[in-house]
């Protein structure tokens, strides 16, 4: 899950950079920090990934919160335009916001799905003792993510 989180965060940071440096260059809007907002969410998720190295669940929780915030702020950004029927799918800012919302909400869905539905089968204690892999340095057991209900990969 951390790899997936890392990929999403990097994608968002890239979107923020394109927003900040691209819109102004193309004359579609002023170069303001507002256009770098996707990058802000990506940065938060990246911090979550980094934090997850020592504090796995806390870090991923932070990344999840950032994704919720990014996804719903993207929806909020698009909703007035949709209601006023001024959505312009050809404009780059609009595409970037849609991409941001899609990445964040996709992450939320994947994480939520894993939390709710990907549960490990109960393993008999005896069999587990036999099959249990040795501890790794960071305390994470190999194959746990597949077997457990954690979103942590």
């Amino acid at each position, binding site marked *: 899950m951390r790899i997936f989180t890392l990929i999403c965060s990097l994608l968002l940071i890239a979107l923020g950079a394109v927003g900040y440096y691209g819109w102004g260059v193309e004359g579609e809007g002023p170069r303001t920090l*507002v256009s770098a907002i996707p990058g802000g969410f990506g940065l938060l998720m990246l911090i979550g990934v980094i934090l997850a190295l020592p504090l*796995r*669940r806390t870090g991923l929780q932070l990344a999840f919160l950032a994704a919720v*915030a990014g996804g719903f702020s993207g929806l*909020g*950004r698009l*909703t007035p335009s949709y209601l006023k029927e001024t959505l312009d799918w050809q404009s780059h800012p609009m595409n970037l916001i849609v991409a941001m919302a899609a990445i964040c909400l996709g992450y939320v869905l994947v*994480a*939520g799905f894993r939390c709710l539905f990907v549960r490990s089968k109960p393993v008999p204690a005896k069999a587990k003792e036999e099959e249990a892999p040795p501890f790794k340095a960071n305390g994470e057991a190999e194959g746990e993510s597949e077997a457990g209900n954690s979103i942590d990969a």
Partner: protein
Amino acid sequence: MNETPTGPDLSKSAEAIVDPADPPSIIDEGTASRNRPLWRRLLVGFLKVIFLTPFYLLIALVAFGGGVGWHYFEASADIDLTAVDRLEVGALVRDVHGREIGRAGTMSRLLITREDIPPHFVDALIAAEDQRFFLHPGFDPVGSVRAAWVNYRADSIREGASTLTQQLARDVYKLAGKDADRKLSEVAAAVRIEEHYTKDEILVHYLNRIYFGSGFYGLGSAARGFFGKTAQELTVDESALLCGLIPSPSRYSPLVSEALALENRNQTLRRMHQIGKLTDSQLASLLETESIVAKSREHLINRGQVNYLLARVERELRASLATRPVPIKSLDGLVVETSIDLEMQQNAARSIDRHLEEVVKRAATAGTPGDDLEAAFVMMENRTGRIVVSVGSRDFHKSEYDRAVEMTRPPGSALFPFVYAAAFETGAFTPDTPVFDAPFDNREMGIGSVGGILGEWSAENPGNRWEGRITAAKALRLSKNSPTARLGLQVGLGPVRELVAAAGIQSPFEDAPGSLLGKSEVNLTEITLGYTVFPNGGTRAPLPGMIREVRDASGKLISPPLELKPDPAMSGATASAVSACLTATSGGVTQSGKSGTTPAFTDAWYFGFDDEYTWGTWVGRDSFTPLFPLAFGSEFAKPLAAAIVAERTSTSPAVPVAASEKP
């Protein structure tokens, strides 16, 4: 850091080895939870759902709101922030004698600077409108919550949540309305304004723009208009009174309701006390102080007419400029010459006020309330249709409703001349043609109550008697209903409708016999225009207006030449015949005109004309209720018109617009 034990130690209690700094989360329960007893897992799951779901929902909601704000903030990037300090200089408006009436397009503002605003006025304004003005960034979440709470507790709207900057943004960018889109645009614009201007600048721009009621825009104009002072000279109680007007200036103006103005002043004073701007003793003293609105009624009426004329000229000017090949949007620098006689306009307004005082007394003796009586008067040049006088209400400060233009009412018997003109135009009738004055079944006309005998209540003759066979001229002069109904039905609705339209009366002429007796509603200005056909030999004047010519800042004439419309509404012979019927000499004075009364005595009219001008008068109530029984136009509208027209030759000086009041 060990988190989730696996392998041989699984038999240990999971929570005992979970790092307290890394508790299980909704997204990562880990294997530790799997090893808990079922009841414990269920309990933990339940608690997570109870506590974390609202938390995530809250985050999602806040994020969504932030996204919406992002949209509006981005959208506001295009607004023109220089518009905030760009008040129009407006167009100079002169009357027919070249006297300056004022400036159209500026709302007669008297611009002030920061130094002109006394500190106690700022205190009063902050207390009344925006207590966190110097703290917030354009919008005030704290103030909004507080206002919502106060309004919830009071179960009514006691406090608004708009900051001064939001109100300024609303005024500058015309963001009136209460829908969410406008409100959010207003907040975004307010934030932009706060980024661009200092608080003091915002304060000055706000006070130069805000409406204080009774036609006074801006603090300078309000201080001058209400108290005869400059803004600097305002006292604490006067400042509180003005700030108390802001939420609903048209209702709270002291010229409309002294009680409401005082109530709001006291509320503002109490708020000043609450935020520590007044001591207990100061509050007690100020609550006892009487805020005197210094102006005399005559001055207010005169000032009101200036404001009315400027507003009307601005409307006409903007409409005219918009039709140019290259529309002109700004009125700055234009010079407008009008046909208005300012002196006569102000005299007419004062005459109406005096006359209605008399009518109120008459109404009181008839047991009818008279406090809502209104009147309107229009006078125009016969040849050009240019308006010389147009009074739309008794007191413009109390009511800005223009009854000369916006109101339509049934003209009653004032329409009869057009019916007779249509009859004469057929060639089958002349003024000497005998008509029959005898009872007539009203079911054919549908006037007033549907039943009854038409003529029993002959509108201009309370003691009606049937005259039998009389001439058409006499029937018109005496305003006889039954012969007019018979004549009109013989001529038919079609010819009468065509003649009325050709005379310039554009309001719909209902396809019902009652229209022959003035049941179809018209407005005062258009029917006055219609009456110009009689002195004009059958040709009506062009559509009425006040503007004679407009020049730009370089002196170049930019208004189109007046187009005289020669299409006659009737023949010269018919016009002369009707004019003759309407002309009578009494006491050596020759008068031409026709009064009008509606069946329920709701409207009293009079229309008169001479070689140069045509004028029309209306007296009635906005509520459509009767003036009082037997209130005929000949008794209530005609004398008023006579009084106004008699002052046409008066040489009394008009009350000038003070130089200090000029923007």
